[in-house]
């Protein structure tokens, strides 16, 4: 058998396994979200289908698929059906570049646990890791906009249209800070390959969350906005826009929107893990444990997403845009500039210097924003009775 066939077979198996794992993350994530939110809200959550209600998402999915697939009379007959796929496909493809484990060696062949990863066969057969891994991932995430804007447009419904426009504008705006925030770790790793970024973190002996804390915060914020999660879940703010761009969708097409959202959330979390939490590495270098470490770190972020959703109200559209363009992007650029300068002039002590500067930067940003809020709340500082009778602890905090 020629080496190329073995190579393709191995990649095929890996792809199927990773896709399967990723797709199982979706129902699991839905279950986790419902359980955690229920816990936050003093409820029980799903507990009827399967142990701990674990099979509830599957029951829900089945129910959704069984439903009638409705196309509104005035909808665009070509675009309306394919819009969910346009959202779903990039969400799936983005998985390909994320490494969930290091180099595995079987006999004379060794490869990384990454669909578009490195492969070494016998007789010098060598396929390198995709060069522009992270660029591809970002490019794919920007393709998701099409699904949203076209779904909104083709539904022939003003709420859908407004939701679609909002969502696409939001996704476009937050792509910039999202990308720029990742450049810091990339500079530190001096490579666009995700595996290199993970290795660089173990070489430095420190996770990039420490020297790139500002980048991490911006990435988290932009990532949340990019995948339309609370508190940035405006496109689907059901209190305002009913369901946003997917108002008219039903059955499996609706399920696809749902799945794409959760897939994107998992992907963003995976990127955060790779770039800021040392990827699949933890304690030991035993290869077969690495996917587990990766999964554990992933859970951390997924929990964070749910936690945020359970606690915060939703921001308004213009405020969201202002946050993206006036706060996140400048901050990300400043962070990038500082990182570049430090790496150019004090490469030996880069980590230490960057840690200090990121602490300084985040402090400034924190006080800046609280000053901003205080200035806008100054009006009520003079306010009447209700204000004066706040519980003491609240008074002092404003």
């Amino acid at each position, binding site marked *: 058998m020629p080496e190329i066939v073995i190579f393709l077979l191995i990649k095929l198996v890996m792809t199927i396994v990773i896709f399967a794992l990723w797709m199982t993350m979706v129902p699991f994530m839905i279950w986790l979200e419902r359980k955690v939110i229920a816990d936050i809200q003093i409820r029980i959550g799903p507990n009827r289908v399967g142990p701990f209600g674990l099979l509830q998402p599957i029951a829900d999915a089945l129910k959704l698929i069984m439903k009638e697939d409705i196309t509104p009379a005035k909808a*665009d007959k*070509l*675009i309306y059906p394919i819009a969910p796929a346009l959202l779903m496909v990039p969400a799936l493809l983005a998985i390909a570049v994320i490494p969930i484990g290091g180099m595995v060696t079987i006999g004379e062949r060794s490869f990384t646990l990454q669909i578009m990863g490195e492969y070494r066969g016998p007789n010098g057969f060598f396929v390198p890791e*995709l*060069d*522009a891994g992270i*660029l*591809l991932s*970002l*490019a*794919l995430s*920007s*393709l998701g*906009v*099409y699904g949203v*804007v*076209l779904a*909104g*447009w083709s539904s022939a419904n003003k709420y859908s*249209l407004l939701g*679609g*426009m909002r969502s*696409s*504008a939001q996704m*476009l705006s937050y*792509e910039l800070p999202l990308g720029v925030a990742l450049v810091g770790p990339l500079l530190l790793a001096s490579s*666009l390959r995700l595996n290199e970024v993970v290795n660089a973190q173990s070489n430095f002996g420190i996770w990039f969350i420490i020297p790139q804390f500002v980048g991490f915060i911006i990435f988290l914020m932009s990532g949340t906005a990019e995948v339309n999660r609370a508190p940035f879940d405006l496109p689907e703010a059901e209190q305002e826009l009913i369901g946003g761009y997917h108002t008219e969708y039903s059955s499996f097409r609706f399920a696809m929107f749902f799945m794409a959202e959760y897939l994107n959330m998992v992907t963003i979390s995976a990127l955060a893990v790779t770039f800021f939490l040392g990827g699949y590495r933890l304690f030991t270098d035993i290869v077969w444990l690495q996917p587990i470490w990766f999964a554990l770190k992933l859970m951390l972020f997924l929990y964070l997403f749910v936690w945020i959703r359970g606690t915060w109200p939703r921001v308004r559209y213009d405020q969201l845009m202002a946050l993206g363009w006036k706060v996140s992007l400048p901050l990300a650029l400043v962070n990038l500039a500082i990182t570049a300068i430090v790496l150019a002039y004090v490469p030996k002590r880069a980590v230490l210097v960057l840690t200090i500067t990121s602490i300084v930067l985040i402090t400034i940003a924190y006080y800046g924003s609280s000053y901003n809020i205080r200035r806008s709340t100054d009006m009520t500082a003079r306010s009447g009775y209700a204000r004066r009778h706040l519980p003491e602890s609240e008074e002092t905090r404003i």
Partner: protein
Amino acid sequence: MEITGYNVAFIAIAAMTVTSAIFVVTLPNILRSALFLMFTFIGVAGLYVLANAEILAAMQLLIYVGAITVLILFAIVLTQQLMGARITQTSRNIVLGGVAAIAVFAFIATTFVSHFSKGSDMIAAQPAVPTSDPLLMIAKMLIQPYVLPFELASFILLVAMVGAIVIAKEDKD
């Protein structure tokens, strides 16, 4: 032409690109045209990948597919759906448009033919394998020999942006 994986991939992607491009100019619905424009650009990105220019491909996706076409979609949706203005897909100036199209085609065709006459087989030509890290090469190119055009381009973009803001502002008052 022998059947290799490379050729099959090239023909498939090229076919997709060209077909979508034909749809872009022939479909009556302008929004669908925009959608096919996206497929065209994705096809072009695919061709870049085949030419071992992965970074260029990623850039193509990011900029042309992720930003420019979306902007076009935005403009269409905003004007057509929200403002109620009709945008026709066909041009009223068929003669002028035809002349322009033929001129562009003639230019490309002559370039193509002149290359063939030199004897180089463009389709069969294997892509150049870069000797060092392509990213590093691009970066060095941008910083050293092409720094002036690069900065000039960004300056023009800045001017365009400021101009756009000014126009939008004036419109409001």
